């Protein structure tokens, strides 16, 4: 034990600590990325092909599609929907596993890294993970000719923001669970899927019955979809854009603070 260099162990600076948590999650992901990368990139590409090009060939450009081909109308929304789906998965099972089955967060809690830093690290990890798969999707969509302008870079940022607006509160919630009853299945079945189907990804929300619309307005996905199309097509109105950003930003901030609280409660018992 005497040969190695002298220890310089210390509590890392807060941002470094957050980054180290990301590094730890990446160490696992690097060995196990294939299946989840496939589903988070290939799946939206298949949707784009089947619905955008296939089904879309039957749809005339109209006011509802902003005068665009259906596939061009769909692509900026699909990146948001797919980002939310990926983030929802990353915010549920892996988080509970890190507390309960693998107990890796319990292990980190004995190091100088604090519970709040673990929470922020987990969130940052999801954001990076979503950013990478959304970029991959958009590159493929561009190659396929579904992207109309460089405004799509804005769509990428919006996709990450929307994904985090959804994931942050879910991460917080996952940290409170003792077992996987049916909670995660319920989140997917009753929140993620209906949101994807009805919150403006595939058709404008004003096609929905009046009484359903308010339900759609409180979903992060609707705000994200609106923003993403505004960015991609350059059709944004300042006030609407600010409103969407504020809504999504507030969810991220509140969700993150809530996650810090639930992580701390879980780890400091």
């Amino acid at each position, binding site marked *: *034990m005497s040969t*190695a260099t002298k220890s*310089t162990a*210390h509590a890392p600076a807060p941002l470094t600590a957050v980054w*180290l948590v990301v*590094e730890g999650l990446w160490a*696992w992901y690097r060995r196990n990325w294939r299946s989840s990368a496939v589903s988070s990139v290939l799946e939206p590409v298949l949707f784009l092909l089947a619905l955008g090009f296939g089904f879309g060939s039957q749809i005339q450009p109209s006011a509802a599609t902003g005068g665009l081909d259906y596939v061009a109308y769909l692509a900026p929304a699909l990146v948001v929907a797919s980002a939310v789906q990926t983030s929802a998965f990353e915010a549920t099972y892996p988080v509970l596993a890190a507390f309960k089955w*693998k107990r890796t967060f319990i292990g980190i809690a004995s*190091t*100088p890294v604090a519970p709040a830093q673990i929470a922020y690290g987990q969130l940052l990890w999801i954001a990076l993970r979503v950013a990478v798969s959304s970029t991959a999707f958009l590159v493929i969509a561009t190659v396929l000719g579904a992207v109309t302008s460089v405004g799509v870079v804005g769509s990428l940022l919006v996709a990450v923001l929307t994904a985090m607006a959804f994931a942050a509160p879910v991460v917080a919630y996952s940290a409170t669970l003792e077992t996987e009853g049916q909670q995660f299945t319920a989140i997917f079945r009753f929140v993620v899927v209906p949101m994807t189907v009805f919150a403006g990804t595939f058709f404008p929300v004003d096609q929905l019955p009046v009484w359903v619309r308010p339900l759609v307005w409180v979903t992060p996905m609707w705000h994200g979809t609106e923003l993403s199309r505004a960015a991609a097509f350059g059709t944004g109105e300042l006030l609407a854009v600010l409103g969407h950003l504020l809504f999504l930003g507030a969810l991220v901030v509140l969700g993150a603070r809530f996650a810090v609280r639930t992580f701390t409660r879980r780890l400091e018992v």
Partner: protein
Amino acid sequence: MVAETVVHGGGLRDGALVRARGLAKRFGDFEAVRGIDLDVRPGEAFGFLGPNGAGKSSTMRMVSCVSPRTGGDLTVLGMDPHTQGPAIRARLGVVPQQDNLDNELTVRQNLHVYGRYFGLSKAHVRAKAVELLEFAQLVDRADDEVEPLSGGMKRRLTIARSLINDPQLLLLDEPTTGLDPQARHLLWDRLFRLRQQGVTLIITTHYMDEAEQLCDRLVVMDGGKIVAEGSPGELIARYCSREVLELRFTTDKPDAAAIDGLADRVEVLPDRLLLYTADGEASLAAAHQRGLAPASSLVRRGTLEDVFLRLTGRTLVD
């Protein structure tokens, strides 16, 4: 006049690495630790004995600065866990009762990733990992996933991991529970080496031989309180006799009158009688003289196990 020793630059008063006064832990209405006093001195191996639920792990978790105390005072390495948790944890090694290795990473990756949380550079962690793999005799398995390793190997890896930051104080919660005798002896050997290097150890265990082997000083906990404290030898001298005579009866055990006066104290267990006495052979002769006919008898030295039994009214196996 002896000057107060200041160890490793921390602001340590009276040289204690861990100092607790009236330390308490409450979970809701339930008080798991009910006001205990501790002083763990630099370089010693300090043990916690106690039956299941005594509050050993709860205490260990408070000392390792992951579980906030709910009462009393605690300083670890001269600092208060409430305000300086991360700084203290940077200098501790923790082996929890339940392993929390990442089973899907390799042995070596577990060390690398964990070491980084202590602010250590990648190069440092890599070099240190090589050294620790050697120490834990895991060189052959270094690049295998953790999942299929045996319990003993995982435990050794957990201990190796706890040393990645060259801790000043190592906390081991039941380090050898569930290991076969060979694995236990290997771990004891490793812990002994650490002690020789000046690492202070705090150990909980259910094994009396482990406590006798490893600990300079120990406390017996029961129901959240410390019921005895001292070196293994002191505890045996104080709570036990020099020798113990064990008598087994296949038929009915003799009644109280028949054994009265044969020993200082008699413990009646389901399968045998324990007679605490200064001279076991003499007591056995006296028992025979009274016409007692045990199926078998054994004279042995008093042990920590006897102390434990007396203090907690329980055998260790449950």
